[in-house]
């Protein structure tokens, strides 16, 4: 079988300015942060980020890499609000398409199933519709006949459009060289839908194992990404840091707090970027190792 192993640089070389990029995980949980850091240091621009938003969204939007965001929320979980996201929104620096998080799920599912939309009640009456004039509704076509439900006769539903992605990046606990991957933590989130919705499908993982050996990492039922969903596999140990990657590691709460503190002060932020976000992934991980050494 094809060996899908690649480097971060090789994956980013396949991206172009203006692309729509899906990022897996949820809030400050199992985000492909090694990729987010690489995007920050790339020459890419005018990106649209589609995400159950965590620090990925604040970092990419505030840095100017992303000019558009599709999301239902942005949060750091243990810290409710991300200061970088607040800043860029409050200066009007990003175009936000805000959707209900269930509609978001349907949008990814529609793209993965190659249908133009999926219907829902979610969004009716809310500003999700008012503020997204391109989002349409659909009238229930089952008003008589055996499939009719009298109480829904004539009702209007939201037609959530497919959220088609040029590329998607998700972070797994482990992947094999053929492109299968497993989420051994409690929640796979929506990651395989991100992959299903995308043209270029990239899985980063804590470890990459020989093909056909994922059952040695955890129960096969957790290996919900199969190689039909994957183009590239990249080994990025500690690659979700500082978000959580259960059961391999929890969120680095001290680091996240330091990120939030730094983000609130231009001088501190410059120093933070200099130390953690201005080099490649090896430099980032080396800085973390140095931090751990210093705190001993």
């Amino acid at each position: 079988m094809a060996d899908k192993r690649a480097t971060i640089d090789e994956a980013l070389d396949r991206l172009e300015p203006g692309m729509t990029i899906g990022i897996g995980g949820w809030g400050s949980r199992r985000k492909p942060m090694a990729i987010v850091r690489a995007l920050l240091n790339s020459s890419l621009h005018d990106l649209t980020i589609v995400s159950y938003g965590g620090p990925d969204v604040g970092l990419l939007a505030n840095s100017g890499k992303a000019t558009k965001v599709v999301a239902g929320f942005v949060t750091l979980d243990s810290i409710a609000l991300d200061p970088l996201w607040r800043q860029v929104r409050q200066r009007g620096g990003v175009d936000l398409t805000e959707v209900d998080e269930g509609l978001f799920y349907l949008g990814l599912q529609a793209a993965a199933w190659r249908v133009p939309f999926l219907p829902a009640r979610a969004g009716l009456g809310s500003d999700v519709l008012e503020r997204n004039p391109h989002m349409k509704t659909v009238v229930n076509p089952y008003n008589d006949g055996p499939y009719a439900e009298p109480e829904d006769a004539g009702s209007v539903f939201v037609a959530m459009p497919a959220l088609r992605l040029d590329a998607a990046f998700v972070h797994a606990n482990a992947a094999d060289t053929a492109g299968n991957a497993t989420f051994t933590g409690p929640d796979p989130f929506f990651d395989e839908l991100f992959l299903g919705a995308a043209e270029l499908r990239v899985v980063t993982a804590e470890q990459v194992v020989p093909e056909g050996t994922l059952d040695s990492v955890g129960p096969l039922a957790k290996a919900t990404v199969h190689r039909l969903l994957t183009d590239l596999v990249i080994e990025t140990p500690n690659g979700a840091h500082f978000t959580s990657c259960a059961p391999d590691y929890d969120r680095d709460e001290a680091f996240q707090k330091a990120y939030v503190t730094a983000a609130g002060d231009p001088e501190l932020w410059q120093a933070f970027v200099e130390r953690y976000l201005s080099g490649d992934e090896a430099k980032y991980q080396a800085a973390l190792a140095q931090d751990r050494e210093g705190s001993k």
Partner: protein
Amino acid sequence: MTEPTRAEVCIAALAEVWRDAGEIMASPFGSIPMIASRLAKRTFSPDLVLTDGEAAIIVGAPPINTRPEDLVREAAVPYRTIFSVVWSGRRHIVMQASQIDRFGNQNLSAIGPSKQPKVQLIGVRGAPGNSVNHKTSYWVPDHSTRTFVEAVDTVCGVGYDRAAAAGSGATRFHELPLVVSNLGVFDFSGPNHSMALVSVHPGVTVDEVVTATGFELHVDDVVETPWPTDDQLAIIAELDPKGAREREIRT
């Protein structure tokens, strides 16, 4: 009877949203709603389904500060499966509101214009879908004319007027049973499903509530919010030994 704190009055009032609820999921946002859901489960609604806030249904109604490793879990509910719960209607959520208006429209997304908000909040989250699919109640710990407003800046949770305007798809399962604030208890029994004052918490006057509300509140037959019973207070103390409830409320 022991004199309860305001937080404890609010907990007992919020627990009522799940009275006789049967086997549905209770999704509380905030310490006080979380204690309330567990109080309901320990007393009059034993079949309530509670989660660990992550990806599992938990057994029983343990204290809210129970460490994750000490929780007993009965089933997995990863995020994606939650929408099967929400859209099937088998849930009653208590959300918070940065703003709420006369007809129960709620905002937790942003204060000010949407293109450049004055204050960016967390986002619409699942509020649009929640509010048109199952019972949705609200907890507002800081009742003022800034939170109880004439019109919310972003409609996230859908109120009665907006649901009606959107048609039967929105109204079929739309129901906002209760709003509890640090000052009183409210429902939507006013004219055209507008907000009505049901009860004021002990020590609060009707005038205080009216003054702290930025829209015309329907006021008729107002009673005092009942004190929690001694049994309820004992359970509340056990559910929240560290007193998180007292830190959530601003009086």
